[in-house]
């Protein structure tokens, strides 16, 4: 067989340098996505007639469009329509694209999680004189979060990988670096295997963090 172990091992140090950028992009996009997703979930939860339908159509666009196309439209398309958008730099555009798109997915997850919190919890809050907003932040959300963690984790793992699409906008991160190394060495298999292993390791690390968090959050729910 034709697997060059030497090269395979040498790939890692150069790839590892790009982990901070990948993680940074992913975490920042995720934070924004969570904030937007939560706001959307709270709005759609109320089912205000026209806004609800409109929002649903917009959300289906973001959910339905391939990430690559979305990034392309934001970075190259928008400036054609509105010249002032041309000041957006590539990293900003990537973060906008990643967060908007995943906000659309997260809003569905959050909506379901909010629904999963027993109606009686809100009633109890109101009955002791808390306002709706207070109830939301002190009682409802903390319970909803727990239900939303696994699905949100899936999205985050997705985002980590989707950052690689930012290469279209000129952001060289982990995967882009891997592609470049592969095409310089022509050792695609070794390089891509190394890339896979790094993503795998990131996923495992994150999964463990998530499990820790889940365990902590489910403390009140264990008999």
């Amino acid at each position: 067989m034709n697997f060059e172990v030497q090269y395979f091992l040498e790939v890692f140090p150069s790839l590892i340098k790009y982990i901070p950028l990948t993680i940074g992009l992913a975490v920042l996009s995720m934070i924004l996505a969570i904030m937007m997703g939560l706001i959307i979930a709270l709005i759609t939860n109320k089912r205000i007639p026209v806004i609800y339908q409109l929002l649903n159509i917009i959300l289906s666009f973001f959910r339905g469009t391939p990430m690559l196309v979305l990034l392309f439209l934001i970075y190259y398309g928008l400036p054609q329509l509105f010249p002032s958008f041309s000041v957006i730099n590539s990293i900003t555009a990537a973060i906008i694209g990643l967060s908007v798109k995943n906000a659309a997915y997260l809003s569905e997850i959050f909506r379901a999680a909010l629904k999963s919190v027993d109606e009686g919890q809100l009633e109890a809050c109101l009955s002791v004189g808390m306002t709706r907003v207070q109830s939301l932040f002190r009682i409802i959300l903390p319970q909803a979060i727990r239900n939303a963690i696994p699905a949100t984790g899936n999205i985050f793992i997705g985002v980590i990988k989707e950052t690689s699409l930012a290469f279209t906008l000129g952001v060289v991160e982990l995967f882009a670096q891997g592609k470049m190394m592969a095409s310089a060495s022509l050792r695609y298999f070794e390089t891509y295997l190394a890339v896979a292993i790094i993503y795998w390791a990131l996923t495992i690390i994150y999964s463990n963090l998530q499990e820790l968090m889940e365990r902590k959050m489910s403390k009140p729910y264990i008999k």
Partner: protein
Amino acid sequence: ENEGKVLKVGSTGLVYPFSFKEGEKLQGFDIEVVEKIADKLGYEIDWQLTDFSGLMGQLESGKLDTVANQVAVTAVREEKFNFSEAYAYDGTQIIVKKDNNDIESVEDLKGKKVASVLGSNHAANLEGLDFANEIDIKTYEAHDGMLNELDFGRIDAYANGKNILLAEIEKSGLPLKAVGDPISKERVAFPFVKDDKNDELIEAFNQALAELHEDGTLKELSEKYFKEDVTVEKVSN
């Protein structure tokens, strides 16, 4: 006069031996040519690495001044962009497995499975053959696995730029060979957005290219990467 000015040049870093990374350093034939030109014109280069569709998008939306990535001059591209003079010549080359004796000329491609890659003009050249409809043409997204694809025997032949293919066959050591003469000839040049402001820059590029030809720098670079001079149009074939 251009001291301290910045030239934004895009490349993919994905095409050995034109534009690739060794460690963290971007290098390759195209890269060095632009660096030499920038030196002459007194520009700093701000390299932008992005994939090929991204390059075209960035060039068009004014985020890049030009692209150094083996951009061949074609009719469609000339509608959108102005080009500098050519700095290299290439052609669409067919390669096959070494032990393949069925395909010895372009005509032998009839009835065979032949691959090309998105975004290259070589795909268009293949489709432009008189008997293209008799060839089973397959397009792939990227050049990445193509030599292996041919080696595994999942395709019979592969068409791409001659300069790339020869360099890669040598480097990879795979049992592949070029067949016949290139089916087309292309000029490789620097594209610029059609804009009066660029005319001057193109002029300066052309000037610099002429000087680099003159003093043998281009020839030297070419031989460093290709072991032959691809910067002049071959009169034979």
